[in-house]
């Protein structure tokens, strides 16, 4: 039984399950490092997932679907930005509103366009995102199952070092962190707090939506109601567990993806109830936030609207 759970397919499914988390967590990182709380990751993922599936139905091209999801994510993020950056709405309240909004909007639209509230039509096999054929599946089944992944998987993994570089080695990253830590000082030094925060929020919408698109037209072949099932919040948890650092977030996402993969495999076989395994990310996050293992300190001005003097 142990071998049924722990084999190479576990690695493959860990990577698959971590991918939407990695994309959304990196998204959250850009936003929160700029000082804007993003609990709307869930809603942004849902927006991306629905848009990707719906646009693919109409255009028959998953690539156009991914692109549309990107645009949708940016638009949703712009709404969050408008509310919180321009009109100083409470960032948590605005995020909650967006999460509720995108439980409703996809259902409303799919009801109107596809006559089914909740789901988009099933896409044929050749219209979901293809896998990157790194290894020949016949000769190398194990390697193929691990490495032959959807392009978004590779994009997610690539974005980790890219984000680390951007954040710590570029002027953009320095400014982004500056407005998140000390917006007054950044403003005095001539950095536009509003522009930097918008940049952070918009990037976060784009990446979270990609995570959503991966769920609907990568892992699956349709959008179903609330298909993210809390993954936006797990991504947020991973971001905190990873101490708002790209590499930390990646490791946390892999850990949470691994837990989910194990939970799926253990369903009905082992004595540990599934529900308890699913709680792991949430409990770990609370423990880390309390500083019981290793303290996670948020960006100093996270959640504080900036008012120019």
């Amino acid at each position: 039984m142990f071998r049924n759970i722990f084999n190479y397919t576990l690695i493959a499914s860990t990577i698959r399950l971590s991918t939407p988390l990695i994309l959304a967590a990196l998204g959250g990182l850009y936003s929160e490092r700029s000082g804007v709380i993003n609990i709307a990751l869930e809603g942004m993922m849902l927006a991306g997932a629905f848009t990707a599936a719906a646009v693919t139905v109409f255009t028959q091209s998953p690539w156009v679907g991914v692109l549309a999801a990107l645009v949708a994510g940016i638009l949703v993020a712009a709404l969050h930005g408008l509310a919180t950056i321009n009109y100083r709405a409470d960032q948590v309240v605005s995020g909650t509103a967006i999460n509720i909004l995108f439980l409703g909007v996809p259902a409303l639209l799919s009801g109107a366009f596809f006559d089914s509230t909740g789901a988009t039509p099933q896409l044929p096999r050749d219209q979901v995102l293809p896998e990157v054929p790194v290894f020949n599946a016949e000769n190398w089944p194990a390697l193929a199952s691990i490495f032959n992944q959807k392009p978004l998987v590779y994009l997610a993994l690539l974005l980790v070092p890219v984000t680390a570089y951007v954040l710590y080695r570029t002027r953009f990253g320095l400014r982004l962190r500056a407005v998140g830590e000390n917006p007054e000082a950044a403003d005095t030094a001539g950095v536009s707090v509003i522009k930097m925060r918008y940049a952070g929020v918009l990037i976060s919408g784009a990446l979270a939506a990609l995570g959503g698109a991966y769920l609907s037209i990568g892992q699956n072949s349709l959008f179903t109601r609330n298909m993210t099932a809390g993954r936006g919040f797990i991504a947020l948890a991973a971001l905190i567990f990873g101490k708002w650092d790209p590499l930390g977030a990646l490791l946390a996402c892999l850990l949470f993806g691994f837990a989910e993969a194990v939970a799926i495999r253990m369903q009905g076989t082992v004595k540990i109830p599934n529900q308890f395994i699913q709680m792991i990310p949430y409990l770990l996050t609370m423990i880390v936030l309390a500083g019981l293992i290793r303290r996670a300190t948020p960006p100093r001005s996270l959640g504080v609207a900036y008012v120019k003097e």
Partner: protein
Amino acid sequence: MKKLLRELIFPLIAVFAAFIIGGIIVIAVGDAPFKVYRLLISSSFGIFDALGNFTYDNWGYTLFYATPLIFTGLAVAVAFKCGLLNIGAEGQLYIGAFAAAWVGITFAKLPGLALMPMAMLAAVMAGAVWGAIPGVLKARFGSHEVINTIMLNFVAIGLVSYLTQNHYKAQGDPIMQTVQIAEQTHLARFHTLLAPFGLNFPQRIPLNVSFILALLVCFLVWFFLWRTKWGYEIRAVGSNPFAAEYGGISVRRQIVLAMALSGALAGMVGINEVLGYRYRYYHDFSPGYGFAGIAVALLGRNHPLGVVLAAILFGALNRGGLFVDIFTDRVSKDLVQVLQAIIILFVAMEALFRGWLTRFVPALSKWH
């Protein structure tokens, strides 16, 4: 009067603006907004049915749907008053509902006079404990209540799902629900309450004593917050924690108290759901009452009276949404969720409307 108008104007603008945007969405999906809105209102507040006969159904169900929202709205409002954002009402109400059912199942032998208050108290206490956890974490470790309440929502739902599935489900029941609670814990419905007055309120409408309890709790919350020392201290912490600390108030204690109270109020949803409606714990019963509570509290300006009005509005939307679902071709009940979200956004973006209002009606600028 002027004060009341001042309190009402921004919530009213927000609702109005949300309905306009909602109307545009209705047009976009290919239906007629006025038809949809008329349906929404007549099916939630109308006292006559389609045939012109008097009916209790519309108001009855609207108030039934409003009941849990009064509880969660109050829960969020109390936390708000202490400067805390409780996103965890959703988890707290699940724990409360399960606790009520647990008492009603486990102590089924006790007489109703003892068991009924025990079951109600269980919902309140369980919710209070679940709410106090993020309070303690904030007071002791300074960790943010928003993240902890979000995380605890998932933990709560997992916990009650496990308990239902493995310990309290009837053998072979395919539905995720516990066995029934003892009969003596069933709360009276309005059917029974109004019968002595010769009113024929239909038995099928699940509006029950919990609604009256909700109104009573509103008054108690108002009294507590504005007429007691503890309430004053909670509000003092909310308006300026540093000044409160300086004035000799223990900020940490008030945070724990406010979160426990908030959780207790959210837990009361279980009284309506389990003791008044389904007579068992039914898993996943909440369509987001906890999150809707944020909308209710914001729209009601964190005042108990405002919470009742906002809860009735959202209760009406939930009731009317069902009819929109059935009687329109292209609009589903999800419109209600969309409206709710837009209302929250607009209430939160008060600065936007305030700017407009003071530009066009300069006299109003003196108000703030």
